[in-house]
């Protein structure tokens, strides 16, 4: 009887041992097609070696309100508004399982509207004027290299370092200037910049958590600040720091809902070698909610970024649509 119990006990241990091994083997045997279909919550911090992801990111926003220097949300009081949409062609490539290269090629389309009615009783004149300034074309392209410094394991999150460079490929100056109020808007910033990011990420199925800090250093350049300027002025944008975190959840096997809270702050700009001390640099908190659908190798996402509290910056929501495919 005792022998039988011992024998059964050994068999049970063996059975569980084999099952654990089998489970472990199953986990490491994800076929490439399944790897390409991983969701934004379950995928690793960088693309697998040899995987190529291409897609389009579209964004749209209007300019209707702003945060003033004291952090109050106000409407623009004058009869003016603007709208902007951008379309990014993006490509990502997994050089190794830990090293990824990204390329972002943006096309920008902006329109700015303003009108005024001038009444000059002394001259017996009424003048109804309106301007519609537009600008479209290639904006500033960016490239990034992302490396998983630490790969995620059961205890620790993955730590990823990223270095990026943005080149001033967009038109930096107003063009086709007919007068002070009739010209084409620029589509670029006119300066190169580089940025560094550190990202920690932990998957706790069906959740994943992210924390990041990002620093952007602008290298400066020259440009016409106004359509009536006769010569370009040197300038250098203030450095920017971003940090934030997100909680992502899989609502089912193919839909993820992500929630990101972030903060940004600019340093002081420099124009014509003079630091703009009197101007409050933009800073603020924002929330971004995203729904991301993973349909086989397609990824379709929709996001809304809402500024929560800020200083000296826009106060309108930003809409983003994403379509990607992993080859």
């Amino acid at each position, binding site marked *: 009887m005792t022998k039988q119990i011992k024998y059964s006990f050994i068999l049970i241990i063996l059975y569980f041992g084999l099952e654990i091994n089998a489970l472990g083997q199953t986990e490491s045997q994800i076929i490439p097609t399944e790897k390409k279909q991983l969701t934004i919550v379950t995928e690793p911090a960088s693309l697998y070696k040899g995987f190529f992801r291409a897609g389009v990111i579209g964004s749209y926003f*209007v300019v*209707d*309100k702003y945060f003033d220097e004291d952090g109050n949300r106000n*409407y*623009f*009081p*004058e*009869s*003016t*508004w603007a*709208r902007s949409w951008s379309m990014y062609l993006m490509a990502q490539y997994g050089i190794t399982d830990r090293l990824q290269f990204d390329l972002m090629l943006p096309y920008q389309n902006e*329109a700015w*509207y*303003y*009108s*005024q*009615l*001038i*009444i*000059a*009783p*002394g*001259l017996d004149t009424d003048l*109804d004027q*309106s301007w*519609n300034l537009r600008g479209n074309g290639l904006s500033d392209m960016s490239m990034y290299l992302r490396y998983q410094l630490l790969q995620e394991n059961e205890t620790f999150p993955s730590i990823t370092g990223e270095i990026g460079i943005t080149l001033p490929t967009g038109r930096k100056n107003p063009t086709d200037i007919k007068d002070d109020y009739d010209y084409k808007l620029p589509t670029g910033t006119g300066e190169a910049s580089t940025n560094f990011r550190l990202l920690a990420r932990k998957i706790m199925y069906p959740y994943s958590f992210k924390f990041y800090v990002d620093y952007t250093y602008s290298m400066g350049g020259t440009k016409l600040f106004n359509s009536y300027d006769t010569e370009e002025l040197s300038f250098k944008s203030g450095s920017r720091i971003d940090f934030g975190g997100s909680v992502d959840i899989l*609502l*089912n096997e193919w*839909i993820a*809902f992500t929630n990101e809270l972030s903060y940004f702050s600019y340093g002081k700009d420099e124009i014509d070698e003079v630091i703009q001390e009197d101007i409050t640099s933009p800073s603020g908190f924002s929330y971004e909610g995203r*729904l991301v*659908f993973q349909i086989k190798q397609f990824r379709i996402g*929709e996001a*809304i970024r809402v500024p929560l509290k800020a200083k000296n910056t826009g106060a*309108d*929501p930003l*809409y983003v649509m994403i379509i990607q495919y992993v080859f």
Partner: protein
Amino acid sequence: MINSLIRFWWISLMLVFSWNVYSQGDKYTLLTEPFIERPVSMHKGQLQFNSAYQISISGGYFEDNLEKTNLQEDGAAVIGHKSFLNLNYGLFEYLELGAEMNYFKQGIRNTTLYYLDIYETVTITELTENKGFEDLILSGTFRLPNNWKVFDMALSAYYLLPVSKDVPDKPEHSIESIVNESQYTIISLKETIRNGQGVPSYGLGSEFKLRFSNFAISGAGSFMVPTKEGLNLYWDQEIVDEEFIYEEIEYSFMPMSRLNANLNIHYQPNGWFHLFGGLNMISRRNGWFERKELKYAYPEVMFYDFTTGFEIQIAPRIRMIEIMKFPLGGQNSYSSFSIFTGVSFNLFTGK
């Protein structure tokens, strides 16, 4: 005896277990019911919480003569933000109770005016803000107990409770004078209007759904009329010594009657996704207000748009709805393009 007790206990346990499995499965089936099969009202015990956000970009205005004025070109496009909150509960299989209260905000700018003369430049900017909760609308919906597979219909009664603020805020106009070589004066006019109606309204409505395989046609119509005249305030204003002086003046008014209708075609390719498109109509009429013992009619409002969107079942209890609305025509209304994003959370109360 002990064996009988054990057997009885096992049978009871199995029965309870199978009942739980049955009820869970039943609830799951009802929660994940495809749109086309879903009745036009809640099931008994179903609690539904709907929340949504809509951004509207009004680049034009349909004038009284039905012609469209381009607001974009005037720098006066209007951006509206609306948050929807709605709660429905199936009291019985054929009787639903509901409550809805929305928040709306938009800023309307007028063309900036410059008055110029030899000695002085005066700039006048004008902003009217609509801000605040709309009134609470309670509803009761009775679904016809026909249980036909092809046709479903419900009748609703509405009551608007004027719980939201309706008195406009005291204006925040300002005058700023700058004197250097010339004199510059900037006059900023800012008024804030609240979204409460101030007067109860009641109404009736009906909706139907006609099902054909993977397709359906749905429609709804409702009207609401105010129960009585109301009293509100407006702010009379004058400039004294470069300062605005305001005076509250009471006036009587009759809110406008509301008529809404829509007709949609739905396509359900699978159980968790459905596409739809259709027409939507809003009409407001018959209201008036009094100023200095004279009655003025509110201009009649009409607006038509084309709506298209989809609904996705993203979890057994959660559905997501995305709608885009394109303006087709109207009268005394903004020509608004809107993006609506909503989430519907459903559960069953009780066992």
